[in-house]
Structures are given as C-alpha cells and as structure tokens.
C-alpha cells in the first residue's frame, strides 16, 4: 500500500488491477457521498406530497387552520360582548349563552393548534427553502407568536374554568377582564401571523431577489404595505364569521329541539348570531376597499391581475355569494317579523326590498373587464358586451352594493321597530327624519352612480368615497335617532321566541356555509395574486406546482375544506353537547310562564 502510494506521489503508474480497484472504490465513494448530496440539494428546495401534491396539501392545511383560527378569534369577541351585556343587565341568560360558546372554544383551540402544527410540518418538509427564508426574517416574531399562543390558551382555560368561581361582584368584572385579555392575545397573534403572509404579498420595495433574508429588517418586513389593511379586514371578518357560526349552531339546535323552551332559546341565539354577523358584514366591504386600494398602490400589476386579470371571474363568484348572503339574511329578518307583534305592518314593503336586492345582485354580478381571446371579442362585437358592458362598470356596481347595504339596514330597522310604539313628543318628526336620511343617502348614491358615467375613470374612482360616506352617515344618524325614539317606547307585545318557521333556520345554515366558502375564496384571491412567486418579485416559485390554478380547481379544493371544517365543527358541537348544562329553562309547568329571552336591542338600552 505504501509502495503504491509512493509510486502515485512520484507520478509512477500503479499496477493496472490495483488501479481498477482504486477507481471502483473512488466511484463508489463518490456515488455514496456526492449523489445523495446532490439529491439532498434538490430536495432542500421542494418536497413531494403523494396524491394531491404539495400545493394542495399546504393549501388544505392552511385553509383549515385559518378557519379554526377565525372561529377561535371570532367567538371570544362574541362571548365577551354577550357576557358584558349580561353583567350590565344582570341577566344570567346572556351569561349562560357566553359560557355555552366558550365551552366549545376549549375544544376548538386544540383543533386550531393541531392544524397549525400540520401546516408548519408540511411547509418545513414540502417548501423547506421558502420556509427557511421566511423564518430567517421573522424568527423573533415566530417565537413571540408561540409564546402568545401559549399565554392565550391558558387565559382561555382561566376564562372558562373560572366562570363558576368568579361569577359575582368584583370577581365577575375580573372574569370579564380575562375575556377581554383573551381577545387582546388572540388579536395580537393574528396580527403577527398576518405580517408573514402580507410580507409574501407586498415585501418592502428595497427587498430584491438578491437581498439576503438576514439583511431584511424585521419591522420593515412586518409593517409592509398590506399588513394593516389585512389585519383590519380579518378582524371584522372574524366577527362576521363568529356570529355566523353561532347562528348556524343555533339553527341546528332549533331544528332538533325537543321542547318549546329549547326552541325559544335557540331561536333567540340564532337571532343574536345573525344580528352580529350581518352588522359586521355591512362594514366589511369598506375594509375590503382599503385593502384593494393598498394593493393597487403597492403594485399596479398585482392590482390589475386581481381585478381584471386571470382572477377577474373570481369576483363574479364573489358577487353571487354575497348576493346569497344579503338575500338569506334579509329573508331571515323578514320571516322574523311574523313572530313580532306589530311586525305585520312592515311585511308589504318586503317585496319591494326583495326587488332592490335582486336587481342589485344582478348588476353586481355582471361581468365587465374580463380576459377575452380574439374569438370571444368577435362574438361580443367589441371589447365589452353591448348591453352588459354598461351595467358592469364600477359606477353601477358601487351603486348596487350601497343600495343593497341600505336595504339590509332598513330590514334591521323594521325588525327593531316592529313591536315598539314611540311615545316621545317628536316621534313623528323623528321617523320622518330617519326616512329622509335614508332617502338622501340613496339619492347621493344614485347621483354619483349616474354621474360616474360622464367623467374619466380616475375621477370616477373617487366617487365611491362619497357614496360610502353617505351610506355610513345615514346609518349612524338613523341608529342614533332610533335609540332616542325608543326611550320609554310602548311595547306592542312580546316577541314570540320559538315561533320562527323552520325555513328561517335553513337560511341561517346557508349563511354559515356561504360565509365559510367565501372565506376560502377570498383566501385564494389574496394568495393567488402572487401567481408564481412565493414572495412577490423576490422569491420565485420554481416547483411543479408554481402555476396558480383556475377557479374550477380552486372551487373544488375550497369545497373540500369547507366540508372538512363544517364536519369537524359539527363534531366539536356534538362533543360540547356531551357535557352540556342546559342554558335554557325546561318547559314551565302549566300556569307558570318562563319570561321570554330579551332582545339584543333591549339589552343594549332600548325597550323590549
């Protein structure tokens, strides 16, 4: 061996047989060491998930995590507000309602954490390079996130398990404080997670493909262009979602109720859930406008891809879904008038309101600026459909949606006023003032909608601000007037809780399914506008799944996620029912009447 080595060092030829062995050994070593290293190099970029592929695997895990996260963020907001009302009114039924949902939260937290862990494991194994990049920038915020999640969980346990112990006096206020703290932690956790995903959409302008992740400043990455608009949009959307889930749960329990008392309780719960969901829904579009504006301001190409590029058809589906939401929510309220003494006087108006809503949905769902190929352009006879092109522009769409919001608000107002007879001296003047405010808002909306056709596009965009401002101002003015009008108002009779038609409960179920599906669709829109970029114009997706899929595929994945989520939430509800303490009194004995559940308006200061 030594001889051979000396020969080699001296440049002498080795004996051929030994040379072959040496070459073979060297090749084997290279095969063992170099080839696996090359394979690892390729594997470090992307992993492979069998069957559905890496993209769908991460998509489903992220979507389910997000849906549970929305549930565990939205429901505590609902619970703490309801608990506060119970304290203010000294009414244990509100307190029981809050507790009933907090019990479900304890189980839902586990599901949220499990799906979060699944998501992280999938990202680590399937998209290791991307995840490494992101974690190098956000590592500190990730540690804080985990710590806060831990603290949030234990705050929840204290909040729920301390309910019976801290139920009176100052201790009850401390308990309420725990609920508020729970919401603070939850919202902070959401804001941190939002910074990661919004950075993927809108990294700071000074970050380029050549920027090492370690050189990106943490705060500039967090406070990126779309971070705060997404925070606010999600915050409001979570309230909507929480209310809708409560409504869906109540509908399920109403339909399966065994007694009148149970039916009355869940009728009341469904009404409160729907009230909170739709109230928050009415302001959600404004947060959406802000987010859209920031996306355009950050990058015109991204904005155009979102609204007029390959995603343009997505907004037609969104319009359809929101149309369903408006119609179902109003239908529920109109049916509810039937169980309110005095509600019948408003029923004749509902057919006209239905007409406004249907026309509004049709206008809103009219396609306008769509990607079209040469043949489609020829078939249309121009760049836009000769008739629908007029309806599809933003002037018409903004007008339609603002009138739909006003109509829905009017439904709420009718519902609120149904069993009241104002006694203040200025009652008639006040009612006329309310009608005038709504009428004026409608005139402003229609005026700018029509005027928008006669001005350039950049001027027209500004008109939506006037339309939105008029609607919001009218809503605020009418609510304030109504609270003053309701002072000391006479009752036309108690609401007959439980006497709600079953089809109203199916409307609530359609609402929760539609909200959940819409959440999935909007998640796809937000994520999909990055197209083949993990991080927009910074880190390209070079995997086999880089292309953003068409809406058909997306719709199928979203549907699967919604089915899985609702299935699991149903299971959680069932688990909760195993340790249920009835939050309602059983049917009273003959001759003794259980007092009806209060209305939310009554609890908030109005007259029942």
């Amino acid at each position, binding site marked *: 061996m030594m001889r051979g080595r000396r020969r080699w060092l001296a440049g002498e030829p080795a004996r051929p047989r030994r040379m072959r062995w040496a070459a073979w050994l060297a090749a084997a070593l290279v095969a063992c060491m170099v080839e696996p290293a090359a394979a690892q190099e390729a594997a470090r970029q992307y992993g492979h998930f069998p069957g559905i592929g890496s993209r769908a695997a991460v998509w489903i895990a992220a979507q389910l995590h997000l849906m549970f996260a929305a549930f565990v963020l939205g429901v505590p907001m609902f619970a703490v507000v309801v608990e506060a009302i119970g304290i203010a009114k000294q009414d244990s039924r509100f307190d029981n309602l809050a507790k009933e949902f907090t019990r479900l939260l304890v189980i839902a937290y586990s599901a949220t954490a499990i799906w979060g862990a699944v998501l992280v494991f999938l990202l680590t194994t399937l998209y290791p390079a991307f995840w490494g990049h992101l974690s190098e920038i956000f590592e500190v915020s990730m540690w804080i996130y985990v710590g806060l999640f831990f603290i949030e969980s234990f705050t929840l346990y204290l909040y729920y398990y301390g309910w019976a112990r801290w139920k009176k006096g100052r201790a009850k206020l401390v308990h309420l404080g725990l609920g508020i703290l729970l919401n603070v932690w939850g919202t902070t956790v959401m804001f941190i997670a939002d910074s990661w995903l919004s950075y993927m959409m809108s990294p700071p302008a000074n970050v380029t493909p050549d920027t090492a992740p370690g050189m990106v400043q943490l705060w500039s990455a967090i406070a990126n262009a779309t971070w705060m608009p997404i925070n606010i949009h999600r915050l409001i959307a979570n309230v909507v979602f929480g209310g809708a889930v409560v409504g869906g749960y109540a509908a399920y329990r109403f339909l399966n109720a065994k007694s009148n008392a149970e039916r009355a309780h869940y009728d009341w719960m469904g009404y409160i859930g729907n009230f909170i969901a739709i109230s928050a829904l009415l302001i959600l579009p404004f947060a959406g406008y802000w987010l859209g504006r920031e996306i355009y301001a950050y990058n015109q190409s991204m904005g155009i891809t979102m609204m007029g590029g390959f995603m343009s058809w997505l907004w037609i589906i969104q319009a359809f879904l929101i149309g369903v939401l408006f119609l179902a929510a109003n239908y529920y309220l109109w049916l509810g008038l039937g169980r309110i003494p005095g509600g019948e006087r408003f029923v004749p108006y509902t057919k006209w309101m239905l007409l406004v809503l249907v026309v509004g949905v049709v206008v809103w769902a009219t396609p306008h*600026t769509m990607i079209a190929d040469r043949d489609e352009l020829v078939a249309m006879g121009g760049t836009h459909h000769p008739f629908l092109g007029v309806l599809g522009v933003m002037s018409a769409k903004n007008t339609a949606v603002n009138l739909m919001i006003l109509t829905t608000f009017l439904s709420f107002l009718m519902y609120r006023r149904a069993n009241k007879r104002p006694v203040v001296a200025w009652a008639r003047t006040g009612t006329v003032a309310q009608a005038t405010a709504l009428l004026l808002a409608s005139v402003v909306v229609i005026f700018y909608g029509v005027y928008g056709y006669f001005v350039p596009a950049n001027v027209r965009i500004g008109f939506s601000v006037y339309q939105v401002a008029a609607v919001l101002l009218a809503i605020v003015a009418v609510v304030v007037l109504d609270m003053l009008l309701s002072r000391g108002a006479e009752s036309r009779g108690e609401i007959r809780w439980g006497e709600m038609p079953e089809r109203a409960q199916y409307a609530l179920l359609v609402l929760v399914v539609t909200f959940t599906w819409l959440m999935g669709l909007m998640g796809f829109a937000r994520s999909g506008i990055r197209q083949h970029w993990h991080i927009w114009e910074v880190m390209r997706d070079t995997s086999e799944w880089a292309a*953003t899929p068409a809406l058909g595929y997306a719709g199928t994945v979203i549907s699967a996620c919604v089915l899985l989520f609702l299935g699991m939430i149903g299971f959680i509800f069932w688990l909760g029912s195993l340790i249920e303490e009835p939050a309602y009194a059983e049917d009273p004995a003959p001759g003794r009447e259980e007092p009806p559940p209060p209305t939310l308006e009554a609890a908030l200061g109005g007259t029942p």
Partner: protein
Amino acid sequence: MTNLKIFAVVVGTILLYAALANAIPQVQSAVPQELVLAGDVTPEQLVAAGEDLFNGAGGCTACHGLGARAPNLIGDEAGTGPIGVRCAERVPATDCRSYLWESMTDPSAYVVEGYDPIMPDARRTLSEPQIWTLVAFLQNQGGTVSVTAEDVAVEEEAAAGGAAGGGGAPALAGGSTDPEELLQAATCLVCHQLGDQGAAIGPPFDGMGARLDADAIRRGILLPNADTAAGFAAMAGTMPATFGEQLNATQLESIVQYLAGLR
C-alpha cells in the same frame, strides 16, 4: 329526517358553489418558462412563442386584451389600426421594432394619450429574448416581423455577459452618476418640473430642497406612495415604486443630493 335535511342543505349549497366555480371560463395563471430558441429560429417560431407569452405567462391580456386600461393590442385601437400597423407612427423617427421594444423596457418614455402610466418594466418578469418574441408577435398584428434570430442571440449573449458581471437589473443611464442625466433616463421630468422642462403632474423639482430634506426626498423616491405631497392627492399612486430597484446606491444619492440642493 331533520338531520338528513340539514345535511342536504349544507352539502347542496357547497356543491352549488363548486359547480359555479367550474362552470365559468377556466383561466390558469401560467408560469413564464425559460425560452430556448435555436440559432436558426424563424420569424414564425418567434411569433408563436410571443403569442404564447402574450396570452399566458406574460400577463399582457389583463390590460391590453380589451383596451380598457391600456391600448388594445389584438385589434383596432380607435381607428388607428392594429398594433403592427400603428407602431411605426407612434413616435416620430422611431421604427416599429424600436418603439415596441422601448414600450416594454421603458414604458413611461411614451404613454399613449388617454391612458395612465401603469405599465411595469417587462424585464422585471421576462427575459430579453422573451421580450423580443413579444415584439415579433405584436409586429405580426398587421405588420411585418423584423425581429430575427440575431436579436435574440445578441440579447442572450448580453444577458450572459451581464450575469457574469454581477447580474441584477441593468443600471440606468449606463451606470452614470450625473443627476441630470439620471433624471432624464428615469423619465422623472415626464411628471416633475425642472426649469422649463417637465409637467406639473407631480411636485416640482424646482425649490424642492427648500421644502424637503434629503431623507424625505430619498423616502419619496424609494417609497413614493408612503406620503402624498400637499395638492397632489389626486395623483397619489401614480409614481412607480421601482426606482429603488433601477438605481444603484450611488445613483440614488446623486439624485437625492442634487434635489436637496435645489432651493
């Protein structure tokens, strides 16, 4: 029976939405593929490659397909004919090929009347050979294709040379640090007034140093949409946020110090 009805309503609603999503036209966002062209590529092959990019990964149709946000490139535009015909008439003394190339690599140099300057530099997402194929495709819309294999080959060599020299976006004005030259190259004077040049679309450069310090000017260049100058709210969002990528640090500081000195 009740639970069965609930299940049917829930699943039926989900299926309805899934069916709707599958019923509409299906458009997938394609990924720009690396372009491999043989040395003897024909004009027809260039046109075909350009058409694929135009309708797919190039993302051109989002604005140009309909003529709503940007000039229609696949048909007649306001009676001026298809792009292959009108391209030579747009800018005096500029032939069709040069005009189309410039419109994609320096889109704010000439903005067609009636449209906003929203087009990004195509080099941010496409390679130069890919841009040449788009030029060929557009020339083919009623005109004569003059792009050749040599153009693509020359650009590929240049790109290779650039990569060897450090890569990154090509420096503006050939890497010059002369602020006035840079202001011209970056087309700042299209919107900002300096002496007797420029338009009043954005805040004037004249006297800028008296209104803003160097930090504010630098921020205005790098993050133009972060703040809006008083009196220019209507034009918010117009200025491209790409100068941080187009200018190197020396060039940026040269412009900043120059503008800060205009009192």
